[in-house]
């Protein structure tokens, strides 16, 4: 989970794109996937995200994202299958519950849509340094620095808390507490009390962070920004491609 949201440091073309362009890509691709109902289009978009992941050298991490989305999508697909009984019947899963051609087609569409629409969001976080996102949010989107900082820092801490939780679960397992159970109900019951040590250590950490920020002059007045967010021809190209994809989704339908 943490790996889906953590920034991976690098110096690829994608890394160097303006963060707003990447944000735009993530959101417009998502919208395009919901506009279109064409299987090939969605597959194409999905493959394009793989290309982006590869050029950003985060393919290994991205595999986890695709896998998670695939599982989610598969569950959605099964669920949808049960509710689409029209069309030519292929076989019956249960008495009265047919698997039809239309059912298969529609549920496959949903799965592809889920994967193609959501993977850019995760990839964007993997390929954009927090600082740039922050600068983009404050300068261009005119969000007050304090709030932008809160959002960005919360994201930055998710992997930290996740690691902390792992440590806590390991510590409890070593006491005979079965956090390594496969039973999902038991797992929830077992993990819930773990939130207490996580909360306490997190609060402590956050307090240190707040003090550290105070001693670094946080929010004491007007702020300068070291990096000016540039806009290169790559950014322009990226925007054109994203717009084209959106247009295509509307045309193809």
């Amino acid at each position, binding site marked *: 989970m943490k790996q889906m949201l953590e920034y991976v440091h690098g110096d690829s073309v994608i890394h160097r794109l303006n963060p707003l362009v990447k944000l735009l890509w993530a959101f417009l691709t998502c919208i395009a996937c919901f506009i279109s109902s064409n299987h090939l289009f969605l597959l194409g978009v999905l493959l394009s995200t793989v290309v982006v992941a590869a050029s950003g050298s985060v393919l290994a991490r991205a595999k986890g994202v695709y896998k998670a989305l695939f599982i989610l999508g598969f569950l959605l697909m099964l669920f949808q299958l049960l509710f689409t009984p029209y069309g030519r019947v292929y076989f019956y899963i249960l008495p009265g519950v047919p698997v039809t051609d239309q059912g298969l087609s529609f549920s496959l569409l949903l799965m592809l849509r889920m994967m193609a629409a959501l993977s850019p969001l995760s990839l964007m976080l993997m390929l954009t340094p927090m600082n740039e996102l922050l600068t983009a949010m404050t300068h261009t989107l005119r969000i007050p620095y304090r709030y932008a900082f809160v959002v960005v820092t919360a994201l930055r801490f998710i992997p930290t808390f996740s690691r902390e939780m792992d440590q806590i679960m390991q510590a409890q397992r*070593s006491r005979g507490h079965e956090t390594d159970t496969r039973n999902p109900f038991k797992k929830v019951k077992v993990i819930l009390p773990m939130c207490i*040590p996580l909360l306490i*250590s997190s609060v402590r950490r956050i307090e240190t962070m707040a003090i550290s920020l105070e001693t670094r002059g946080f929010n004491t007045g007007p702020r300068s920004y070291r990096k000016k967010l540039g806009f290169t021809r790559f950014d322009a190209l990226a925007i054109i491609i994203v717009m084209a994809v959106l247009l295509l989704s509307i045309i193809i339908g």
Partner: protein
Amino acid sequence: MISIQHLTYRYDKKAPLILDHINLEINKGECVALIGQNGSGKTTLLKQLNGLLKPTSGRVTINGLDTATTKTSALARHIGYLFQNPDHQIFCNTVYDEIRFGLLNIQCPPEEIHDRIKRIAGLLGLENKLTRDPFTLSRGERQRVALASVLVLETDILVLDEPTTGQDYRECVEIMEIVKDLNRKGKTIIMVSHDIEVVADYCERTIILHQGRVLEDDATHVVLRKSESLMLSGLEPPQIIQLALRFGPLFQHVRSPEDMAEAVAACAVPGGVRV
């Protein structure tokens, strides 16, 4: 007791080897220190002992149980593991409940629970704190609560991951004295520590791990004199031994400041101390 044969470990197929063909035997009643640089594989090796991590190849046997096929929660009856940060282990509302938690997990008979808790609390000086919320205690006291909750499981083996980090010297000595006492009564102790003085004072056997391999494995007073091996691991011998080594064979049996003072006295004035 603990048998490690040709143990290798890596996170997944493409990751580098973290543990590289480790062979070790640890016998009942030993007090062993495991030292090495960060990244040498110390914590990984410890986690292999109680099954938190399973071997990629090779075998780890604890009291005859193969860790690869036994759940960690089951191994908890044989091997107690104290984590570096006590706050990762504590979550109950009272010290009493905290110590009881582990006993419930291993299905200890209800009649025995109360007695065991009282005994352990007495051992660690926590009798008056049983009704307190652990998070209102000082860090040193919380470390003792965490230790109590592990000791109450009455395992043969105790593994300690940096038991003295983040504490002041007094708290550190308190914990180590308790550990040493347990060792004298027959518990096997394995300890990871960065503090070379603690290692010198409390452990008879020391293993240096370097890049996933066992670099040294011998009696502590022998290992701590091997400056090159220690330097390779980013460590230095304890001060007194560093000093002794500068004089060649003259002070080769010195282990503590007291030994050194005696040896110097013997050399400086033939026949003993000057009046």
